């Protein structure tokens, strides 16, 4: 114990800077630049509100990410319950003091920005469960009484978020939490049982869904059934992507987006816009960037010694992957439109903040990879 502490304290600033994963930093930076390009295009080729604030946010949160990378892994480990609780309180705050916009209450007004705590909860839950499963012994993992707490911390924020209502984010939070449990070794049996329970409860859940949520699911099943109504977004998105062809229509030439056929082009459909303007090769480029980012996070998980670090990195990589593919499958018409941003690319401060926070913790696992957490 002492020895390792001495190793830790022996890390000079130079060592820390050297040990940063530069491939990851560079990939994130490139993706950030690409996202600025895409945002510039959504503004019709001008530096307008969305572009400017996206640039600002990216650089602020990118800086935050670099800063957080140097915070001791031990800090993240020791404070993870507290962080979760803080985020949970923010979520509760949304319920009572939140801002309502287009029918759902998701934001807290912090004066300098509107914060969406549900985005932060994506990271908070992973952090919480990573610590939890790090601490309990392997024999206890599949004990029912040790499953109680994870289920509570998983379900409580999900219910809060789902009733905002924000089904998409709720599902993505759940995905992160479940991946921790899975990686920690919870038996497949439990997943199967809860899976069945979920399906059994589905009809009841559906009865709680808002009409627009129901129609989105129905529309997904058959988008052409209502081309001007709910199926519109999926159809227009497919047209935009498909018409991009191999090389795309060219930067700022995406007719689907600048003629406003594309819905939510700043946020959920930013990939569609990029894909329309830069074609198949552009889309592939984005996919590769994401793949590199995920691969580097997994790699950090491989080299970090603590199970907390491993659990966190693997889970975060998995969650990150899920965010990316859910968004892409959604705009490609492979999933219903649930409303999930594309990490880093999409416009939105809270999402950017949460992702950078998550990446910062992962990078901290790299910098302090040999540090035991307890």
């Amino acid at each position, binding site marked *: 114990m002492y020895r390792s502490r001495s190793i830790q304290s022996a890390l000079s600033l130079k060592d820390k800077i050297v040990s940063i994963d530069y491939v990851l930093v560079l990939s994130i930076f490139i993706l950030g630049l690409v996202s600025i390009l895409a945002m510039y295009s959504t503004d019709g080729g001008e530096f307008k509100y969305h572009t400017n604030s996206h640039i600002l946010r990216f650089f602020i949160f990118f800086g935050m990410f670099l800063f957080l990378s140097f915070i001791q892994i031990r800090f993240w480990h020791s404070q993870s319950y507290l962080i979760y609780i803080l985020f949970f309180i923010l979520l509760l705050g949304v319920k009572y003091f939140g801002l309502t916009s287009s029918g759902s209450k998701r934001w807290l007004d912090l004066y300098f920005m509107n914060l969406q705590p549900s985005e932060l909860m994506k990271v908070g839950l992973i952090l919480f469960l990573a610590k939890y499963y790090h601490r309990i*012994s*392997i024999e206890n993992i599949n004990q029912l009484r040790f499953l109680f707490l994870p289920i509570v911390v998983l379900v409580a924020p999900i219910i809060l978020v789902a009733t905002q209502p924000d089904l998409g984010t709720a599902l993505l939070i759940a995905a992160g939490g479940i*991946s921790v449990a*899975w*990686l*920690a*070794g919870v038996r497949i049996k439990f997943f199967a049982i809860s899976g069945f329970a979920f399906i059994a409860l589905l009809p009841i859940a559906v009865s709680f869904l808002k009409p627009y949520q129901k129609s989105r699911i129905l529309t997904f099943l058959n988008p052409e059934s209502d081309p001007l109504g709910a199926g519109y977004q999926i159809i*227009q998105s*497919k*047209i*935009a*992507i*498909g*018409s*991009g*062809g*191999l090389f795309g229509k060219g930067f700022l030439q995406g*007719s*689907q987006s600048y*003629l*406003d*056929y594309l819905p939510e082009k700043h946020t959920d459909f930013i990939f569609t816009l990029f*894909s329309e303007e830069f*074609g*198949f090769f552009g*889309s*592939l480029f984005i*996919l590769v960037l994401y*793949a590199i980012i*995920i691969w580097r996070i*997994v790699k950090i*998980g*491989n080299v970090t010694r603590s*199970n907390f670090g*491993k*659990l966190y990195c*693997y889970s975060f990589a*998995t969650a990150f*992957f899920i965010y990316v*593919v859910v968004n*892409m*499958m959604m705009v*490609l*018409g*492979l999933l219903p439109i649930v409303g999930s941003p594309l990490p880093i690319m999409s416009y939105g401060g809270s999402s950017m903040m949460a992702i950078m926070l998550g990446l910062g913790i992962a990078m901290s696992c790299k910098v302090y990879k040999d540090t035991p957490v307890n």
Partner: protein
Amino acid sequence: MLSPSSGNTIIKSKLISRRMFLLTAAKAVVMVGIIGRLVSLQINERSKYKTLSDKNRFREWKLAPERGVIKDFFDKEIASNEQVYQVHLIPENSKDIEKLFVRLKTILNIPDKKLFFLKRVISKQKPWEPIIVSDNITWSEFSRINLFLHELEGVKPVVSIARMYPDNSSAHILGYVSQVSTKDLQTKKYLKDLHVPGMTIGKTGLERKLDEEIIGKIGFQRYEVNAFGKRIKQIQINEGQAGKSFKTTLDFEIQKFTKELLKDKAAAVCVMDIYNGDIVSLVSSPTFEPNEFVHGLDRKYWDSLIKNERRPLTNKAISGLYPPGSTIKTLVALSALENGIIKPQDTFKCSGKIELFGEKFHCWEKDGHGFVNLRKGIQRSCDVYFYEVARKLGVDRLSITAKKFGLGKKVLSGFVEERAGVVPDTKWKKKFIGQNWYLGETLHSGIGQGYFQSTPLQLCLMTAQIANGGFEIKPRILFNQKNNKLKDYIKYKNENPNDPLPIDLLLSNFDLKPLFKNQEHINLIKDAMYSSSNEPGGTSYKHRWENKKFTFAGKTGSSQIKRFTEDQREAEVKQESLPYKDRDHALFVAYAPYNDPKYAISVLVEHGGSGGKTAAPIAKKIIKKVLERHELRQRVNKLLGEEV
């Protein structure tokens, strides 16, 4: 040494790695799936989506082309175009259609029925397609619309061009234009890509015949539009092409003159150049107002047209069928001469009637004409003479001659309303009536009654072909510089009067098709027609022109509607005393001037009584007018000839 807890840690770590491996495999599969989807959308189906994207992006608005004009022989426009003020509406630009209509109603006075119709059209078409609310409003209405335009969102005041007929004298031959109907779209192939809201097409007459060429080529404006239908920028504009203009052979002045003459009568007149077949005048009466059809017909006006028993919508000159009556006698005599049945000097005694198998056949002259030869037979129009001739000739030989001279078939081409008429013969009766021919029917045919049916145009053509010396001509309504060599032949003939041209030489040297075996027979008929009009006792003697310049030779005719009963015959009932519907149709055909024939004319007056009394005086006036304008016409002909 590892502590138990560190052993635990390592086992845990291995478990985590194993599970992570599984997850990574799953991720790879999903990644491949996404790439596959991208391949399918962006590579395999890219052309489909490109098309869809362009469909989104571009919208085309079609522009109706300007319809070509129709001119008369002197280049006066008889079907022209005028500027009209219209109100269009683009439904998607209006926030509240209902409210808009209420507002429009206060400005434009639109009937509720029309509003209902407009709403139905709007619900059927795409929201960006313009609809025409009013297609012909007055200037004051138009300026009021412009004044209130700021509160009429979606309304577009448009200055457009529409068909305008300066006069209704030629309404029948020109026809009219009207809105495209669903049926038109189904039946007329050339309209397939042509349909523009508000466009009119020819429905009858020349307008219909020429429709395909006169419409022009459609133009379009292509705009880039955004998802809300707002036009972002114009990508392309194609003005289209105005339709071809046409020059006709009609003389607008004579058309108007004739129309005035026929006022209040159900009648038709046709005037034709006997050498080239140019139709100088073709009028049917009563006429209708073709301008009423251009901007959507008023129900009341339509009803008045339909209910009028004088059928103003029918072009009586080409689609009215009438027994030719005594006008056919020219052809009966000619046929008999040509077939060697009679000689000009052969006489029959007319005592007012003859009997055949117990049936009485009356002459119109109750007391009879005495001894009658061919010339007198035509001059007096003696029925008994022609009963005898017809009996000898037989209906089949008569029918051959009649068909040669243009009866029983359509004369013009491309006029849907033109009718062929009937030239009966034994085969025809067997085929269409299913009975054998009776000799009595031959007698009726000999005086142009019975099954005979002809149009005034056919009778005019028949007369023209007699007048020009018996040569075939093709009537034409569209001006065409190509003339036949008939005039060259006449010139040659005048210079070499004693040089008879064999028929085969006529054909090879002048490219003429003679309708006779011996031209002398034609001259006999022409002479007899002269006597009918210009010698005492002739049926139209009363209405002759003494002036050699206008002297015409004609033949009267009355076609019977109802046969007289014996009682009526005994009582010498006058046509004038019969109910209108029972009176005979009056007919008159002629050519003029007699010395140097130039034009042929046919006049029909429905239920006009006798041809000599009713039709001949009309013909007389028209002949004078036509001949007075002949020099003018000649000059234009020459001018055009030199230009070519």
